């Protein structure tokens, strides 16, 4: 990597808010966004929240004032159904006004129920059909290498999404082309749309699969900020290899009655569940 080519980080991570505070704020915001709009996927947001918080407050190089700045790190949320959490992060950093979040999923909004790039600063690509993000990220990483740029590409996949063959096509390709500017993070919450991952199509041993494809793979507790930060600031783990982080997570993490409860893939907290959820998130 040509690190010396890279201009100064416009928003040094030291000046950013703590990832723990950010994660709490995202959870509060996303539960309100999804409940207001009666939108799905709150549990999917909660499992990836800590990963997003650490990435945006401690790892990614970006400038909210110039969302298309050429040297920014690229982030792709391939599990586009968890976009509410990503929108909340982007608004926290000022990519767009926080008021937009209040329109999430509503008529006339810019913020659709799957990550949408059109008119939304900070969203690199539209996702929502699973299995597109990693191939897109791989293309970006290849372009970055060919252009000898120093920026990096980070992509979050869900575990159920790993059923899609397209991911494994990219997984074969990236090590062959020595794309060590590419990092994939798998939100391994063990649940997909119709039940447990191990009952639908078992992925274990997941990290070994990526290793066998030529990736430098590590496992981590996906809610442990210090551990996440240590890994994410340490990529590439091996020169010449793309990095894979299997993040063990809990779907619905942060609100007890949503944890490991498939219902909250589909419905937001309703009625008195909303104040209960907010109370668990420390909102009085």
């Amino acid at each position: 990597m040509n690190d010396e080519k890279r201009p100064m980080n416009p928003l040094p991570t030291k000046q950013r808010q703590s990832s723990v505070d950010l994660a709490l704020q995202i959870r509060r915001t996303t539960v309100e966004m999804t409940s207001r709009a009666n939108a799905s996927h709150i549990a999917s947001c909660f499992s990836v929240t800590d990963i997003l918080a650490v990435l945006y407050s401690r790892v990614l190089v970006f400038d909210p004032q110039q969302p298309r700045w050429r040297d920014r790190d690229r982030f792709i949320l391939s599990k586009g159904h968890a976009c509410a959490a990503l929108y909340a992060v982007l608004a926290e950093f000022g990519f767009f006004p926080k008021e937009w979040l209040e329109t999430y999923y509503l008529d006339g909004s810019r913020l659709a129920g799957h990550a949408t790039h059109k008119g939304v600063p900070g969203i690199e690509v539209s996702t929502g059909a699973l299995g597109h993000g990693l191939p897109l990220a791989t293309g970006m990483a290849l372009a970055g290498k060919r252009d000898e740029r120093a920026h990096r590409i980070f992509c979050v996949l869900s575990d159920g999404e790993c059923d899609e063959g397209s991911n494994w096509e990219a997984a074969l390709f990236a090590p062959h082309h020595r794309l060590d500017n590419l990092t994939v993070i798998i939100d391994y919450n063990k649940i997909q749309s119709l039940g447990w991952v191990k009952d639908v199509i078992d992925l274990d041993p997941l990290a070994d699969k990526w290793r066998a494809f030529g990736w430098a793979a590590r496992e981590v507790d996906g809610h442990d900020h210090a551990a996440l930060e240590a890994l994410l600031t340490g990529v590439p783990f091996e020169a010449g290899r793309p990095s894979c982080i299997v993040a063990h997570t809990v779907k619905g993490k942060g609100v007890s009655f949503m944890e490991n409860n498939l219902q909250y893939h589909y419905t937001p907290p309703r009625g008195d569940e909303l104040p209960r959820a907010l109370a668990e998130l420390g909102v009085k």
Partner: protein
Amino acid sequence: MRNAFFNAVFALAREDERIVLMVGDLGFRIVEGFMAERPKQFLNAGIAEQNMMSMAAGMALEGKIVFAYSIANFPTLRCLEQVRNDVCYHGARVAIFCSGGGFTYGSMGVTHHVTEDLAVTRAMPGLTVIAPGDPIEAACVPAAIIAHDGPFYVRLGKAGEPNIHAGPIDFQRGRAITVREGDDVSLIATGSMLLVATRAADRLKADGINARVLSMHTVKPLDLDAVEAAAAQTGVILTIEEHSIIGGLGAAVAEYLAERPGAGPRFKRLGVPSAFASEIGSQDHLLAHFGLTEAGVAQTAKQMLAS
């Protein structure tokens, strides 16, 4: 519609062990009972539509009749070559069905809008393409699938659409159903737009205009007799679909009319222009944005009658 279709599949599967229901990790709160009751006739293929479609063809070639379910574009566009080569070319008895047709999942964004499926499936040799207009029609489709030896694509809406037909219907693959009689203008609708068409016809009636409403539930093979009768007996034909104006019902009718000898009726396709929705919004919001409302249809019909 979705529930009516599923329930009909469950009922047929209890009588016919060849039937297998295959889902792409979807069907929460719909399929669980059937999954427990008939595990040998059920499969969750995971989130892997290409593999699912080829497996469906493989099972069908071994004598099964496979109903393969997912939402939005996933069982069609995502695996189109599997549909073409493995299902259609082999004449495999696979009935692909999706819920979420058109803008059903409007607020979920463009990746969940299904507005080119009729075009691409219509182009597949041997594939019957059906978009039922209400739950009563949807409930009839599985039996029509079992009665015909060949592959199907069925586009459904969601749950909770109203019934449009007043009573039992004579549902036949490739035969339009006349929902309103009339000789001034023909409104030919498919799928969810049947409701809009019938309501538009009621509006026109109040203005003394008699609109014929055809439920063109089968987009392929198209009921040419019904189109011909509409062309001969009414001066104006409007097609209405929650789909791109390219390649769907309107295009199918236009192709027929353009090659038909003699002077044609005045004709217009109502649908979605070839553009991604620039608005975020619910199904109703997007339909209004594209003029696919009873008022929009009635107004277009009047303008065409006046021109």
